């Protein structure tokens, strides 16, 4: 009789100890791999970004020296090629982000609303058609895009049908806004813009808009990502359809009014998710550039991600390459924090009670 509680406590602590060991055993592989190939690399790269490592031997051997913030200042204020390249890459990617994100968000929302109509034949077919580009590899899509947008390619042939002479897309370094200005008669830049510069790029060049080549990449990004985001919107729309819609219908609201005043406000959380994922994804363009243009023509499709890679692997400037990586990281974190701040308002829509962990980011690729 007296033994029972004793036994119970002993057993419980035994189970506890065993759970401790098994728990760690179960999680060890993931922890080790993530630590070895995520945490440790970041620490090593942090060291390389403040060193003069040339890629020979180990970065921890005696021949590698600490150079302080030299690599960072070469990129941010060096006045040389490194600074100009970084500025150019930032400009290119900035236009890529600022155009891709709104376009893909709007298009995916449109697709979702169309596909999600209550009465629709062939819903599955349309959903599949719109989503398929998202599962194919970025390499295959880029190869296809190079063909579609080549000088005598499909797109230009279609443009010719309506009497437009298309550009040689991936060879055309002209900025879209510059072309627009040119068509308005502004061919020489105003001195105020041409004379001053930021990050080694004149303000006139900052205002160039995406190059024609980059525009083709923007269209490709919209083409390949809209399907994924469409699915997010469809999922959200299906949680919405119900009493509110019917109430609005009974009140005589038209379809457009229902969309504008009932659906759209309730889609806000998803809208924010999509925009944030879009922002994070579009700052990381790499595969397409590597496969398609290597930054050309005239560096107008250079992106920070590709610049970081080529600076290190092609030019053996490992310190600068790592530093660019960290600066890109900072940019992405900046947007992630903005997202956090905005998402905080999400609590006004009490829809997610089942999950306690904060939402993971960046699940798409």
């Amino acid at each position, binding site marked *: 009789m007296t033994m029972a509680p004793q036994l119970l406590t002993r057993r419980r602590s035994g189970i506890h100890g065993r759970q401790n060991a098994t728990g760690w055993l179960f999680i060890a592989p993931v922890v080790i791999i993530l630590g070895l190939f995520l945490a440790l690399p970041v620490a090593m790269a942090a060291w390389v970004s403040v060193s003069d490592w040339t890629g020979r031997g180990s970065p921890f051997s005696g021949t590698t020296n600490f150079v302080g913030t030299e690599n960072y200042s070469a990129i941010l204020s060096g006045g040389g090629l490194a600074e100009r390249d970084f500025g150019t890459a930032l400009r290119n990617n900035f236009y890529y982000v600022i155009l891709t994100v709104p376009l893909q968000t709007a298009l995916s929302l449109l697709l979702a609303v169309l596909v999600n109509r209550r009465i629709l034949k062939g*819903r599955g077919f349309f959903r599949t058609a719109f989503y398929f580009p998202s599962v194919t590899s970025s390499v295959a899509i880029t190869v296809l895009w190079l063909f579609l947008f080549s000088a005598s390619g499909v797109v230009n042939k279609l443009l010719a049908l309506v009497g437009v002479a298309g550009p040689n897309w991936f060879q055309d370094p002209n900025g879209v806004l510059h072309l627009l200005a040119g068509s308005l008669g502004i061919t020489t830049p105003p001195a105020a813009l041409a004379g001053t510069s930021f990050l080694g790029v004149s303000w006139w060049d900052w205002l160039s808009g995406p190059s024609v080549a980059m525009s083709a990449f923007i269209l490709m990004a919209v083409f390949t990502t809209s399907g994924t985001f469409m699915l997010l919107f469809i999922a959200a729309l*299906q949680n919405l359809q119900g009493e509110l819609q019917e109430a609005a219908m009974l009140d005589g609201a038209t379809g457009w009014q229902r969309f504008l005043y009932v659906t759209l406000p309730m889609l806000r959380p998803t809208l924010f998710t999509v925009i944030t994922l879009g922002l994070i994804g579009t700052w990381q363009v790499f595969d397409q550039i590597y496969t398609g243009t290597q930054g050309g023509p005239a560096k107008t499709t250079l992106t920070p991600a590709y610049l970081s890679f080529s600076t290190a692997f092609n030019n053996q400037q490992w310190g600068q390459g790592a530093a660019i990586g960290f600066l*890109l990281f900072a940019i992405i974190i900046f947007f992630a924090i903005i997202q956090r701040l905005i998402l905080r308002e999400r609590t006004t829509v009490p829809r997610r009670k089942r999950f306690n962990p904060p939402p993971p980011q960046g699940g798409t690729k």
Partner: protein
Amino acid sequence: MTVSPIRQPIVDAEDQAPPRASDARPAPARPRVRKPAKWGWVVYVALILLAIVYIFPFLVNIATSFKTEPEAAANPLSLVPATWTAAAYERLFLNSDFPLWFKNSIVVTVLVTFGRVFFDLLAGYALARLRFRGRSVVFAALIAVMAVPGVVLLIPKFLVINQLGIYDSYFGMVIPLLADAAGVFIMKNFFESIPVSVEEQAKVDGAGTFRTFWSIVLPMSVPAVMTIVILSFQGSWNELSHFIVSTQDPALTTLTKGVAQLSSGQLSAGTQYPLKLAAAAIMTIPVAIVFFIFQKRIMNATAGAVKE
């Protein structure tokens, strides 16, 4: 039937929708649907036009891969080659490293998929069910890891792989891809959605943790495991940047890396569009097959995994 438990209702809702709608387009019976039906044809026209825009490029891809090079340049729009030729495919398979790339992609994809599923299962189960010390720290660390953007890690990954002496080897290509935090999350959410009572029953009967996991939990997890299998397959088959930084030996080139280099002219190929598009078509086939077999699951998993 649940995948990630989160998205399950979608499937049902959509499965039921089409049959009900089948005869409702031209003459709406109920007053409620009159408005949508009146504009119905506009929606259909819009959808069909959009679908053409989305599908046409892939048809062009396949058609062009069977054209001769002059025809591909002269008449890119036609979907039926004037003279059919499999020359591009012959060259790829008989006169290039393409079969080697294909083999490498398969080896890496299979290894990564198996490893990932196993590790994600273990870790997800531990996080969902086992109360061990440091659990919340591990969980927080996983969230932090998921926030690190992949391209930022290109140089760092190379540094570690190089330092560990596994550069230019299957180890370096496979091991870093084995753990993925997103998969752990999917599994954790799944395990939390199934009732604990069954496992407790097994434990009362004297089964150890691993035994319970292996013979009770695992059989119940088939749907979630399928989700991870598909996502891992897709992810590792389409992976490019990791293979760029972990290998330089041509014998270890994967499809993505090989085709990317072919496309960018690093293999001095010129503008051989039929050849390149044939390569692109072949590398799309495996993902396309998996996609068409499991499309509902894939689409639900995508929505679930990203949205949570």
